[in-house]
């Protein structure tokens, strides 16, 4: 058959299967990060944030700030192997925790200890990974907080799978997955967002863009107008929010989570924020950034922003500030005290959970270690 025999008129038609699958415009982020704090209420889309919420957020960021300080101090005291501080990102951490309903799930990265704590988990259990007594310390199914995840972006497909499973089971559950700006470059980020959009899974991705992946600034990480612009490429809305504005983050996440729960599909949220401390206590941030940059961000501090809002609305006086700080101090003291106790360690745990049933080989190895330890005891 030659092409000459091909039937049909020379119709100037578009390719048959071409149909834009969705309207792109509503998926694109606004040009400026969404803010509530410090913007005149007339300019705001949403209703005035309610006083109760403001107070809860405030108490939580004050506590969060103190928690970060305490955890960093614990590294100096040899009580934590390492701590990646979220100082400067408390608004994101706290808003993420408070936006969740009881039945929702949180998928944190290694930097999101505070989000788990703000959700009400026992801080000592949350710090297990970073203390090094085990890889993970809390009851994930009971708390609905997945383990703090170290390999970057790998927790994102987990969140998608869990959200999808919940939907298949008919449960009204949403998953909120946290990742960093650096993590957005990993293949797992891409695959997770794509699965989420295709499956219309009830999941929200919160990218905490804190400007750096260890030493690598955002400009070396991406050339995109914003990370939120990645959403349209998956067919999900991308939202840009001021990550130091706890109220704005909370509002955007609540909206996205509600949409997810009601079958509206996933959302990508980019929160623009800043890591005020080094990557971890082991890092030296002066090698890759200037004091003046850090100073500029200190002037946009999430705790201060919130405090001023509350003050300006007459929701906070000196006494309330002091109370919040005392409460935070007290929790820090309790944490310090508990962390200064050596955790119980049982070498037999090394073999206990590799499989549901230890293999014969693992049983032998557990026996060997037990014998070694017993011999060690004897000679002591």
């Amino acid at each position, binding site marked *: 058959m030659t092409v000459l025999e091909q039937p049909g008129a020379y119709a100037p038609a578009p390719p048959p299967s071409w149909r834009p699958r969705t309207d792109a415009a509503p998926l694109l982020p606004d040009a400026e990060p969404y803010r509530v704090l410090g913007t005149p209420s007339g300019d705001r889309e949403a209703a005035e944030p309610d006083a109760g919420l403001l107070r809860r957020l405030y108490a939580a960021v004050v506590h969060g700030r103190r928690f970060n300080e305490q955890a960093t101090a614990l590294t100096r005291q040899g009580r934590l192997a390492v701590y990646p501080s979220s100082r400067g990102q408390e608004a994101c951490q706290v808003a993420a925790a408070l936006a969740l309903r009881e039945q929702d799930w949180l998928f944190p990265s290694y930097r999101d200890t505070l989000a788990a704590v703000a959700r009400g988990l026992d801080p000592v259990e949350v710090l297990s990974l970073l203390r090094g007594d*085990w*890889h*993970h310390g809390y*009851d*994930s*199914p009971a708390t609905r907080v*997945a*383990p703090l995840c170290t*390999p970057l972006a*790998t927790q*994102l*497909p*987990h*969140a*998608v*799978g*869990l*959200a*999808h*499973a*919940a939907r*298949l*089971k008919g449960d009204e559950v949403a*998953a909120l997955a946290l990742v960093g700006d650096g993590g957005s470059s990993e*293949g*797992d980020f*891409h*695959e*997770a967002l*794509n*699965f989420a959009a*295709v499956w219309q899974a009830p999941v929200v991705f919160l990218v905490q863009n804190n400007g750096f992946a260890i030493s690598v600034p955002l400009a070396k990480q991406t050339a995109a107008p914003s990370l939120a612009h990645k959403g349209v490429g998956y067919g999900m809305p991308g939202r840009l929010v001021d990550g130091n504005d706890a109220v704005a983050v909370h509002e955007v996440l609540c909206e996205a989570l509600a949409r997810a729960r009601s079958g509206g599909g996933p959302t990508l949220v980019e929160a623009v924020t800043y890591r005020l401390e080094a990557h971890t206590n082991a890092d030296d941030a002066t090698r890759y950034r200037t004091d003046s940059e850090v100073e500029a961000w200190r002037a946009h501090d999430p705790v201060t922003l919130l405090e001023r809002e509350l003050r300006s609305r007459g929701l906070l006086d000196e006494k309330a500030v002091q109370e919040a700080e005392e409460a935070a101090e007290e929790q820090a003291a309790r944490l310090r005290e508990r962390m200064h106790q050596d955790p119980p360690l049982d070498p037999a*745990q090394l073999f*206990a*959970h*590799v*499989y*549901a049933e230890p*293999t*014969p*080989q693992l049983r032998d190895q557990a026996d060997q270690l037990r014998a070694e330890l017993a011999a060690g005891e004897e000679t002591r």
Partner: protein
Amino acid sequence: MSTAVRQPAAAPAVRKPATMGQALRRALRDAMADDPDVHVFGEDVGTLGGVFRVTDGLAAEFGPDRCTDTPLAEAGILGTAVGMAMYGLRPVVEMQFDAFAYPGFEQLVSHVSRMRNRTRGGMPMPMTIRVPYGGGIGGVEHHSDSSEAYYMATPGLHVVTPATVADAYGLLRAAIASDDPVVFLEPKRLYWSKADWDPEQPEPVPGVGRAVVRRRGSSATLITYGPSVPVCLEAAEGAREDGAEGWDLEVIDLRSLVPFDEETVAASVRRTGRAVVVHESPGFAGPGGEIAARITERCFHYLEAPVLRVAGFDIPYPPPMLEQHHLPGVDRILDAVARLQWESGFTEHVGVGEGRRGGAV
């Protein structure tokens, strides 16, 4: 749940020829029918029924939510499977070909294999990862890898592979019923192998982790698994006529690489005093090294000769037109058997395997 292999009601056995592919499909079907938490997903497993048709009909029977075509992304498949398992499902995923499982390696090693241990049992990963593996089907590059060495070296994974139609069913049921992640390696070139088999009365297998003696023998033990089992059985037949007085070879089908059934293997080698490990995957740092070392540790004084290995060469899998040179065949196995020092003469200054062919197997 973990041992929920369906016990079919007694009925007159109807054993008809079935292929391994059909037995695998039947295992998936029965597992899905028995447990609504079993979900099958992967590339082309739905409408098409998989490129090897192992999932054929499942989407039609159980709907697209139970048997789902995913986007084309192996890390995404394994990663979402982790999340689904976290929520209590029992995912059965398909990697389309051995080499196409590699993009998911991080999810497999860093999460699938470690989640139970990480969470001290709080979040088990009852997941089955089906991987068609091995060569001999004329596949072009990246379609014939034997990747079992990678999985064996990853604590937390079970690694299982059937060699018979009956085991294909039984092992896959056991894998899906396991509360641990199982890498289920399907020998591609045995998909079309046939045996009389009654799908209504499938033989149970004794769970994951037990080897089986496929042929009794007294002269030496061939230890193998998956696609090399039929080859070893053929070699054993050939060995009767071979050699000065003929060899009577025992053939062990490991079925499970992890856990490794040391008892069955050691008992055989102690009896025969000689052993050859046979597999397709490259010899260097392949399964045979572990197996030979382990046998030697346990049976040293029973050995008349060192445990030898017949394996794929230490090369990337060859193109179709050259693959027959790479695959361990009957002749190469019998050559190795012939080198098991039957004369029992200890050669001063020349270690076994020192000779021309020494390093190769």
